[in-house]
């Protein structure tokens, strides 16, 4: 294994290239499939293998920008990226992140930042995970009931997103890929709120934005995944620059990780083709619960266990996604052969 060891001059470490490729690949698969940046996997993974925390965050953000380009390009070709919606949300997200940062400084000044933020994070993740899981289970229940009565699955009734779309504050705007017409203030406001939350919790925001795009704006799952990745791409590029000028990015490590992530992102993105939207939501809920458990462990000062849990869960989830991809590709090729 020694032949794969390289010296990372900026982090000042000897590191195994295969490990960098594996971490990149894992997060690439999850990112492309769920539309998230995956900082919750990469940062603790790099940290347990010896990266100092600021370098782990900076290196993660740098590779995240490149990886999201791969996924956004593919999702764009699938028709899953609504650029207009993404840009509208970015306006709100930027302001929200700044407000969130100021809130963190205030919490720090009164000595509450660390404990309050972790508690909010755990509660927030648990709530989002439970809601997504509830939504999945009620969809399954409706589908089974409809199958029993031999008719189509009935709609779930007016959702929160439908109610929000009815608020007609000008200017009204149509988002073609999402197929939604609503006040431009809706995505800006959702971006603002998710930006504040992401900034306070110190995360990229994919975990919060993806469900917000589904449940508050009304996108279908695939457009939510694609549009969120478009935002992750921009925040990743900004993060790479800002951490770069502060000298906290190990560019060589980021390049190796991106090599693995590019393959993973491509596979994760293509896997969405073979999975129904609600199945993506179910896997997403499971992922959120794992992230929640890891933060809870950190709160209980079980840092190493938490990082190991995260890394192994990431590998396991990406394994499931790759399994779904291979099954889907196999079926597609078989169907084509039968037609020929």
């Amino acid at each position, binding site marked *: 294994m020694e032949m794969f060891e390289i010296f990372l*001059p900026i982090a*000042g470490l000897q590191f195994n290239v295969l490990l960098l490729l594996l971490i990149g690949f894992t997060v690439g698969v999850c990112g492309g499939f769920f539309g998230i940046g995956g900082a919750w996997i990469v940062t603790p993974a790099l940290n347990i293998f010896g990266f100092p925390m600021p370098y782990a965050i900076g290196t993660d953000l740098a590779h995240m920008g490149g990886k999201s*380009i*791969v996924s956004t390009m593919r999702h764009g070709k699938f028709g*899953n990226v609504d650029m207009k919606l993404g840009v509208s949300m970015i306006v709100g997200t930027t302001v929200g992140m700044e407000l969130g940062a100021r809130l963190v400084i205030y919490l720090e000044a009164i000595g509450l930042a660390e404990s309050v933020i972790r508690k909010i994070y755990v509660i927030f993740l648990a709530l989002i995970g439970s809601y997504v899981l509830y939504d999945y289970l009620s969809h399954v229940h409706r589908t089974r009931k409809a199958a029993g009565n031999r008719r189509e699955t009935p709609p779930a009734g007016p959702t929160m997103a439908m109610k929000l779309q009815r608020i007609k504050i000008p200017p009204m705007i149509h988002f073609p890929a999402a197929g939604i017409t609503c006040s431009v203030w809706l995505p800006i406001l959702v971006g603002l709120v998710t930006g504040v939350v992401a900034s306070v919790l110190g995360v990229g925001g994919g975990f919060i934005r993806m469900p917000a795009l589904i449940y508050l704006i009304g996108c279908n799952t695939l457009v939510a995944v694609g549009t969120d990745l478009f935002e992750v791409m921009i925040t990743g590029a900004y993060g790479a620059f800002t951490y770069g000028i502060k000298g906290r990015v190990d560019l*060589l490590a980021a390049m190796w990780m991106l090599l693995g992530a590019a393959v993973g992102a491509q596979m994760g993105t293509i896997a969405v*083709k073979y999975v129904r*939207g609600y199945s993506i939501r179910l896997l997403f809920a499971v992922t959120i619960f794992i992230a929640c458990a890891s933060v809870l462990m950190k709160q209980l000062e079980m840092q190493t266990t938490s990082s190991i849990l995260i890394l192994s869960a990431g590998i396991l989830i990406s394994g499931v996604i790759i399994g779904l991809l291979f099954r889907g590709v196999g079926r597609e090729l078989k169907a084509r052969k039968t037609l020929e």
Partner: protein
Amino acid sequence: MVLKAAGKRARCPAMRRTWSRLAAGAALIQLLAGKAWAAGGPPATKLVNVADTRAMSPGLSKWIADLYNTNLWLFGLATVVIMAAMGYVLGSGFDRLMSLVGINLGRLDHHE
């Protein structure tokens, strides 16, 4: 002065030795404190990031480390450009590779 007065007052040799040791100790502390104060200077405001390039041979790693040591703004800019370029090239390359497998990579029907 202090030593002399103390020496006169200290009649026994053991006492004299103690006094002289104390005086030497005080002088040493004063000397070291002065040196430490001079070396400390004003309080540090920023930590300097330096990549160790001493044992590195020319190549990509050395180029990155040199850029990091010379200009952090340029390094930040290079990080963004390299990541974006790599993302684009790898994305396009793997896209072509995947389409060679024979799977349809056109627009998707959105199904929930």
